[in-house]
């Protein structure tokens, strides 16, 4: 996720801790840092939420506009997810258009929401072929201490559950309506460090690892997105156990929404 430089001493320390069944901060392998979700903090946005996972800090804002549907889906609304790795969050983030990490982050969050059908796109259609709601999910990373995807996905979901569509402002209805949310996809990420799997990797752990797996699961336990990242490989037999743990941890994170 990040290109920060990790000293060899620190890397050895992280490896040694994990080999001994320990971790930075004394966490268990499948234990998240403290997670907090704060909703509705930006008055101008249609929905918003700020999520902290340990020192990682992410703000997601939802804006809704009326626009034209895509020609191949005339009766469906549109979701557009964008992530900005703004330079205030990390010395390794630079200004300019999103780089591949930002693009990947936004697309993993987006696919989780789409795969779970959390938002019924048909319900966002006002006039087939010409007028639909376009929902913009904009993710701002404020402080980067690892595991940006889980924080971003949780912030996006929290912001969506807090979203009101501005029917009055756009003169398409008498009353503003809450955005209907059908499911709550939750992303959980683990990293492989020296053959051991740890969930919710902090920044130093991410830098010591060359492989991460994000699994997004729905309220009913189905999988709605998977993404392997990093230049490493995962043994075939490890996958199903990771998915099991992901589902269980997602259940705990879901309670924070």
């Amino acid at each position, binding site marked *: 996720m990040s290109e920060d430089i990790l000293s060899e001493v620190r890397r050895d320390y992280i490896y040694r801790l994990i080999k001994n069944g320990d971790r930075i901060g004394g966490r268990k392998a499948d234990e998240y840092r403290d997670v907090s979700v704060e909703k509705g903090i930006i008055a101008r946005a249609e929905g918003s939420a700020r999520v902290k996972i340990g020192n990682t800090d992410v703000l997601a804002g939802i804006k809704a506009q009326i626009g034209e549907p895509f*020609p*191949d889906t005339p009766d469906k609304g549109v979701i557009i997810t964008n992530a900005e790795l703004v330079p205030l969050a990390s010395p390794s983030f630079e200004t300019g258009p999103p780089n*591949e990490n930002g*693009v*990947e982050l*936004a*697309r993993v969050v987006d*696919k989780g929401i*789409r*795969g*779970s*059908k959390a938002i019924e796109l048909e319900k966002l259609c006002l006039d087939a072929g010409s007028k639909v709601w376009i929902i913009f999910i904009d993710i701002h990373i404020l402080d980067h201490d690892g595991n940006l995807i889980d924080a971003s996905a949780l912030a996006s979901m929290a912001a969506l559950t807090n979203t009101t569509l501005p029917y009055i402002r756009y003169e398409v209805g008498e009353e503003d309506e809450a955005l209907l949310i059908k499911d709550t996809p939750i992303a959980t990420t683990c990293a492989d460090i020296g053959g051991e799997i740890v969930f919710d990797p902090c920044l130093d752990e991410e830098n010591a690892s060359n492989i991460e*797996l994000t699994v997004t699961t*729905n309220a009913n*336990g*189905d*999988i*709605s*997105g*998977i*993404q*392997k*990242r*990093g*230049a*490493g*490989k*995962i*043994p*075939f*037999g490890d*996958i*199903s156990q990771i*998915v*099991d743990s992901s*589902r269980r941890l997602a259940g705990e994170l879901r309670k924070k929404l």
Partner: protein
Amino acid sequence: MQNRPEKLINDGVRLDGRGADEIRPIKIEAGVLNRADGSCYIEWGGNKVLAAVYGPREAHPRHLQDPRKAIIKYRYNMASFSVEDRKRPGPDRRSVEISKVSREALAPVLMLEYFPRSSIDIFVEILQADAGTRTTGITAASVALADAGIPMKNLVSAISVGKADGEVVLDLIREEDNYGEADMPVAMITETGDITLLQMDGNLTEEEFIKALNFAKKGCESVYKLQRRSLIEKYEKSCSD
């Protein structure tokens, strides 16, 4: 835009006549380009994909150089005429992501530490697309890397698996990709069973996921045999010339 076929699967038979765990016809040819250090052309169902490898060569710009090992550049590019609605040329968010995960899918087999400060450049051009282009691209790139003589621990094979009409199916065609319920590209080092790319879009239960993963493994085994054969054929040909 075509309309959704009424059924994607009829009594276990797919639109192109295949069963759930059968792959499309695949033709792989190594060493098809003259200037590139290594190359590969694949026809995989309706996909036509060319891959070229240049390098190891000096990495530019210099700040990208890694003093300990070679860097990999991977560019996945779709030709504007490769799909039904013309694709605007140049990189978009989808191709940026695909390039990243494809590069990471090949990295585990490349012995990059042999070539500090250099770059191994992989260019994949999708000339005609019919679902599964990223996995076709990775399969082609892997053969092109071997054709370029770059030291590798093994070949990487890739295939997509997914769900259409409620059934887990191997090697999706366009209709199954567009109208199906899930798409899961997988890349593997077939001989060791290690997974180097895993993505999933859509929705699968755990049971379906496990089944899909096993289908993908079986598919990769077939792809791997064809990759190997294409390389052997190339050298047999150059020996007899």
